[in-house]
C-alpha cells in the first residue's frame, strides 16, 4: 500500500506540473494541450462512442494477429530448435529479420493484400512472429538438459516427453517470448493504423493530427499507453510472477 501512495503522489504531481505549465501559457494551447483539454477530448470521444469503436477495432486486430503469430511462432521455433539444418539456415535469417521494423512491410503488404484488414494483420504478424519464434528456440536450448534426461529416464518419450517435460520446462522462456511478441505486435499495429486509414486507435490519433486537435492526439496517446500497460503489466506480468513463484525462480 505504501507503493500505491507513492504512485498516487507521483502522478498527481505530474498532472500538477502539466496543468501549471499549461496555465502559464508559455506555449499556445494548440502546441501544448492542457490536461483539462485532453480530459474533455477523452470524455467526448467516449461519449460519441468513437473511442469505444477504436478500442474494439484495435483490440480485435491485436487478438487475431497476435494469436496467429503465437501459434505460427511456436511451430517455427520448434522446427528451428529441433532441426540442425533449419537452425543453421533459417535461424540466422530470423534473427537478422528481427532487426527490421515491421512497419517496413507496409508497402508490400498493401501491394499483396490491398487496403484490407489482411494487410494490417500481416504487419502485426511480422511484428511479433519473430520474437515468439526466437524465444521458443531459445527456450528449448536454454532449458536445463537434465529435465529431458530425467523424463526419458522415467519412461517418457516422443510426444509425451515433449508435452509433459520439454514444454513445461521451457514455459518461463515461452511466456517471456510471448510478452515480447505482444509488445512488438502492439507497436506494429498502432503504426500500421496510423498509415492506413481504417478505424482503430492509430487512425483516431491521425485524425487529431489532421484536425490540428492536439487534445485528441494526447487523449489517444494516453489510451494507447493505458491499454498497453493493462495487458503487459497486468496479464503478462502476473502470469510471469506466478510462474516464477511456482518454479522457484525468484525468492518467493
Amino acid at each position, binding site marked *: 500500500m505504501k507503493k500505491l501512495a507513492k504512485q498516487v503522489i507521483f502522478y498527481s504531481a505530474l498532472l500538477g506540473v502539466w496543468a501549471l505549465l499549461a496555465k502559464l501559457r508559455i506555449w499556445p494551447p494548440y502546441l501544448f494541450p492542457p490536461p483539462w483539454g485532453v480530459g474533455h477530448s477523452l470524455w467526448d470521444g467516449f461519449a460519441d462512442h468513437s473511442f469505444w469503436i477504436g478500442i474494439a477495432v484495435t483490440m480485435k486486430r491485436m487478438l487475431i494477429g497476435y494469436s496467429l503469430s503465437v501459434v505460427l511462432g511456436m511451430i517455427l521455433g520448434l522446427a528451428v530448435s529441433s532441426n540442425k539444418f533449419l537452425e543453421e539456415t533459417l535461424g540466422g535469417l530470423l534473427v537478422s529479420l528481427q532487426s527490421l521494423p515491421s512497419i517496413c512491410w507496409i508497402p508490400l503488404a498493401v501491394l499483396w493484400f490491398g487496403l484490407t484488414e489482411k494487410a494490417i494483420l500481416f504487419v502485426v504478424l511480422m511484428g511479433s512472429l519473430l520474437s515468439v519464434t526466437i524465444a521458443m528456440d531459445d527456450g528449448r536450448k536454454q532449458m536445463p538438459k537434465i529435465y529431458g534426461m530425467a523424463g*526419458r*529416464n522415467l*519412461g517418457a518419450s516422443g510426444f*509425451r516427453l515433449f508435452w509433459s517435460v520439454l514444454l513445461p520446462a521451457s514455459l518461463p522462456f515461452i511466456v517471456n517470448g510471448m510478452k515480447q511478441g505482444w509488445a512488438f505486435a502492439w507497436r506494429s499495429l498502432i503504426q500500421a493504423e496510423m498509415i492506413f486509414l481504417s478505424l482503430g486507435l492509430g487512425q483516431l490519433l491521425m485524425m487529431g493530427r489532421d484536425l490540428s486537435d492536439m487534445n485528441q492526439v494526447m487523449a489517444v496517446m494516453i489510451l494507447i499507453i493505458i491499454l498497453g500497460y493493462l495487458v503487459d503489466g497486468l496479464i503478462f506480468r502476473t502470469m510471469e510472477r506466478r510462474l516464477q513463484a511456482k518454479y522457484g525462480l525468484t525468492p518467493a
Partner: protein
Amino acid sequence: MSTSPQNAYPAAVPTGTRAGVRANVFRGKPASSVTTFPGRPIAEVVVPKVALDAISLSYKTTSGERLLALDNISLEVKPGEFLCIVGPSGCGKSTLLHLIAGLQPQTSGKVLVDGTPVSGPGTDRILIFQELGLFPWLTVGGNVEFGMKMKNVPKALREEKVQYYLRLVHLLKFRDSYIHQLSGGMRQRVALARALATEPDVLLMDEPFGALDAQTRDLLHDELERIWAETGRTIIFVTHNVREAVRLGDRVVLLTFRPGRVKEEFSVNLPRPRHMEQTGVARMAGDILDCLRDEINKSLEEEYADEKAR
C-alpha cells in the same frame, strides 16, 4: 593389477578373477545382518541382475582427439545387491551409470539386465541424477507420480503408491509442496521416492548425497539402507566418498582415473546396520583409500598440468 597386502579382508578379490568375485560376494555374510534385515532375500541366483560386458566408451573432444573414457569394464551385480562404485573425479563413474540407464550409448560392449541387452532407457532401471532433475512445475506428489503416469498406471493405483512411497521417505505432509520449497535433504528424498515409485528392479544413484551436510547425509544413509532392505531393490551407487561406499555397499568397486577401468573390488562383510564412524568402516575405507590414492594423485596431476598449460 595385484592384490595389495593390506586388503586382507576375507573377500577382497583382485580383478581378473571374475569367477572368484561371483563366488565370494555373499560368502561369509554375518548371520546378524540377516536377522536385522529380514526382508533381504539372500538367494542363490545365477543370472546377474545387471551385467556389464566389456563396456568401452570413447568420444571426440572439441580439439578433435579421441578420448577413451571407459575401458573394457566388466561387472556383475546380483539381484538385491548394493554395489558401490568409487573413483577419482573424471574416472567416468557417472557416465557408467548413464550407460546402464540407457541414456547414452556405449562405444562397444553390452549392458545386460536379467541377461537381456538393453538399448535405450527403461523403467526397470531408474537413475537418480547428481542434480536430481526434479520437475519444478510439479508438486512433490506430481513428481512421484510422473513415472507411473508415463507407464499408464491407473489413477487409483497411482494415488495409493504416491502415498506409500511418500510415507516411506517421510514426506507425506509435503505432498502438495513445490520442489523449491524443500530443503536439500528433502529434495533427495523426493528424488528417491520418484525413482522407487516406478518400481524399478535397479536403482542407479549418482553421488546423491554429495551436496548435503554430514548430519542430513547420515540420516539419509540410514533411510536408504532401510528402504533397500524393505524393497529388496538392486542398487548401484556411485560416490567419490570411500567411507560412504563402505558404509552402504555389499561390495565396493574401484575405478581408475581416465580411462576408467576396474582397478579392484572389495566385499564388505561388516554387519548391518553400519555407521560412518564405526572403526570397521573407517579401517576398511582407509585401506581402499590407499589403493585409490595413486588414481587421485593422477587426477590431481592432470588438473594442475592443465592449469600450467594455460
